[in-house]
């Protein structure tokens, strides 16, 4: 029983997966997005009517579809980590390519949304809501692109046999970053597209 207790304690006392440095980066990013979200909420509280009216011009279907896409891509990344833990580098690479493909779907949907807004004459200076909407979603969009670049590098390294069941820190590092991108969107979508 005592042994079980020790095993349980040591199992709990793990560092997060991947390179420790990525976690400092992840929390720094989360802090920045957190400040952005709070600033959005405060600005909204000063002019609720403007925010609610402007929100009606957003494509909620596209936002919802992108949420499903990112959550599913995050799941694919979980499968990629599981594959490399078993030493199956080819399958790991395959799941990562699937996640990257879904990332590309997100990018296409988001670009279509941006295009529709610009075509309708909506810019950063249209009003406070669109200043926040465009800058927040574009900032997140850039993180999706960065995540896709990281996952692509990891997928190619996996395919070349650069990771194994004993050494897969790089896969977990890329995975952790991608989950962070998903996590931020999970808060951003309801806050900007749904709450009114």
């Amino acid at each position, binding site marked *: 029983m005592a042994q079980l207790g020790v095993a349980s304690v040591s199992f709990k*006392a793990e560092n997060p997966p991947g390179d420790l440095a990525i976690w400092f980066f992840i929390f720094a990013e989360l802090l920045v997005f957190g400040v952005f979200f709070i600033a959005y909420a405060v600005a*909204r509280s000063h002019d609720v009517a403007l925010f609610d009216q402007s929100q009606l011009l957003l494509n*909620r279907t596209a936002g919802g579809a992108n949420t499903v896409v990112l959550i599913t891509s995050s799941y694919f990344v979980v499968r990629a980590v599981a594959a490399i833990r078993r030493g199956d580098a080819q399958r790991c690479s395959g799941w990562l390519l699937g996640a990257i493909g879904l990332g590309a779907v997100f990018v296409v949907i988001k670009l279509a949304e941006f295009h529709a807004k610009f075509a309708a004459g909506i810019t950063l200076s249209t009003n406070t809501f669109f200043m926040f909407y465009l800058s927040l979603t574009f900032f997140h969009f850039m993180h999706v692109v960065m995540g896709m670049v990281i996952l692509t590098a990891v997928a190619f390294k996996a395919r070349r046999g650069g990771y194994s069941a004993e050494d897969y820190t790089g896969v977990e590092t890329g995975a952790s970053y991608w989950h962070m991108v998903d996590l931020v969107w999970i*808060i951003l979508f*309801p806050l900007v597209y749904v709450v009114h």
Partner: protein
Amino acid sequence: MRKNAQTAHRLRSSAGIWLLLLALTGMTISIGETGLGGAWVIGLVMGIAALKGYLVSGFFMRLRRTRLLWRLLMLGWLIGVVGTVTTVCLTAVK
């Protein structure tokens, strides 16, 4: 052997978490489609977001198996950000 069993268990729970996340997303989208607003909608939608954030950080990012410090940092971010945003939005409800 233990690692393989652990991986298989993680896969099963991850698939369940993925389906749960999709179901919660479906709820958020459905609430949005009703066009309803107000305090309870804000509370419900942001509560769902916090739960989804917990699931992603705990299960997909695997933070629930880490040292207390890491779990507290993530929970602090989730509760701090979602809690503040929700409170600010609720104070603006007429």
